[in-house]
């Protein structure tokens, strides 16, 4: 069984402790979100898990066969067309150019891009379109594990919901595993099986919340009810320094 296991992880930048004693296990087909305020070390944790930062203390066991990363910003290569941007990960895996283009085209259409967009450069796309491209680029390689670094944070609610629904479909049909970081509790409730609440200074997991209904069956009402319930939770109030009126 593929899994990602984080054991006793600590991390510091200089003398500043960013993460302290982080432990969790992410199993195949599950979605874990790490929720916490901005600047709380969430991105650092994600980068450590994805191997983009070197681990200093603790242990990370990653047995997933493949992974992909979608960033907060789209991070597209400006000199490549939309199609070539999406195909980037496939080319890296050694897929032939022709096959890569077919796969990239299919997934682009699935993510709401049009054929005429594929030849465009990123500068000619809107912010939302670019984020679609970024998602398509991450998912076209059919990763076993997907790392998401607040990719919805700059989108309007309509687009946010649309892309989240795409993702939920993907989770259900491809048995996709996701490690997701966000500061938006509602987003976390909608997408994840387990929510880890990360407080800042230093980043520590203070609460673990499990949601049992499969994502695809979760209704808006259920999400809203859960949200209201969580907003009353003392740990959440403390972590986000919420002011109660």
């Amino acid at each position, binding site marked *: 069984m593929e899994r990602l296991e984080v054991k006793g992880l600590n991390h510091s930048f200089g003398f500043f402790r960013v993460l302290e004693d982080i432990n969790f296990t992410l199993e195949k087909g599950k979605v874990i979100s790490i929720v916490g305020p901005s600047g709380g070390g969430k991105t650092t944790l994600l980068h450590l898990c994805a191997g*983009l930062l070197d681990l200093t203390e603790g242990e990370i066991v990653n047995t997933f066969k493949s992974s992909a990363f979608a960033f907060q910003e789209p991070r597209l290569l400006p*000199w490549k067309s939309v199609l070539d941007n999406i195909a980037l990960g496939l080319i890296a895996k050694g897929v032939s150019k022709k096959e890569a283009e077919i796969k990239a085209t299919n997934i682009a259409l699935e993510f709401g891009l049009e054929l005429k967009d594929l030849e465009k450069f990123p500068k000619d796309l809107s912010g939302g379109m670019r984020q679609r491209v970024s998602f398509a680029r991450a998912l076209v390689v059919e990763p076993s594990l997907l790392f998401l670094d607040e990719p919805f944070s700059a989108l309007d609610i309509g687009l946010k919901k649309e892309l989240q629904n795409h993702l939920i479909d993907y989770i259900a049909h491809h048995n996709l595993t996701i490690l997701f970081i966000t500061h938006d509790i509602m987003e976390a409730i909608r997408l994840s099986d387990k929510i880890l609440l990360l407080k800042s200074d230093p980043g520590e997991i203070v609460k673990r919340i499990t949601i049992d209904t499969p994502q695809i069956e979760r209704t808006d009402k259920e999400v809203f009810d859960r949200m209201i319930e969580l907003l009353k939770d003392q740990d959440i109030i403390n972590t986000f320094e919420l002011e109660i009126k």
Partner: protein
Amino acid sequence: MKFILKILKDFPWFLWSGWGAVASIFLFIALWDVGYQLYGELVLPSPKATFGAVADFFSDEAIVSDMILTITRAMIGFVAALIFGSVLGLLAGFFATASIMSRPIVTILVGMPPIAWVVLAMIWFGMGDTSVIFTVVIASFPIVFVGAMQGTRTIEGELKEMVDSFGLSLWQKFTNLYFPHIFSYIFPAWVSGLGMSWKIVVMAELLSSSDGIGAALAVARSQLDTTVALALVVVMIGSLLFLEYIVLEPIKKEVEAWRD
């Protein structure tokens, strides 16, 4: 290959878009003619006489060989500057220490007037090819060097992280990220380096050589032959305009299509 075809395909459209430029050149020639009518042949020969002299050049073997010589010198100097500037600029860009250390040297090279280089070159190498080519190289080198260094130093960390996350091989990183980025800086630097070479070669020849267009210009000056002098200038400017606008501009347009 696809790329070259695209440039050729867009070429007629590119030429057609040049009417504005043509109009402004004709306006300039009209003003020039006004100058001629006000000040006379000796100060400012008429455009007609000048272009007539240019046409005569092409049947004059001596001048044609001078032109070829000058263009050869400019090209040798430019290519040398392009190779040295690009290679050293890339190296300087990849190492932080090297780029910090090279900055003052580049400032000195850029700040040093080319005419001073001509004088030094004459002392070091005497009159002739070497002096001229040396001056061209030393004047265009810093432009190319800075372009290459900037290109290497400005690659975004975010994009590097993105390519790392997809596990691209070193070669794939080079072709997908480093090369296109660096090229977008280095290519405009090459174009300005070429313009610089063209200007410097004539100046260097005028002072430190007995052949080439620069030397012919010096002869025209001593004989007070303004028409020939102006015609030589027209040849140099004409060839530069041709190279920059007809040859390089369409390539540049295609290469930089992704820019805002």
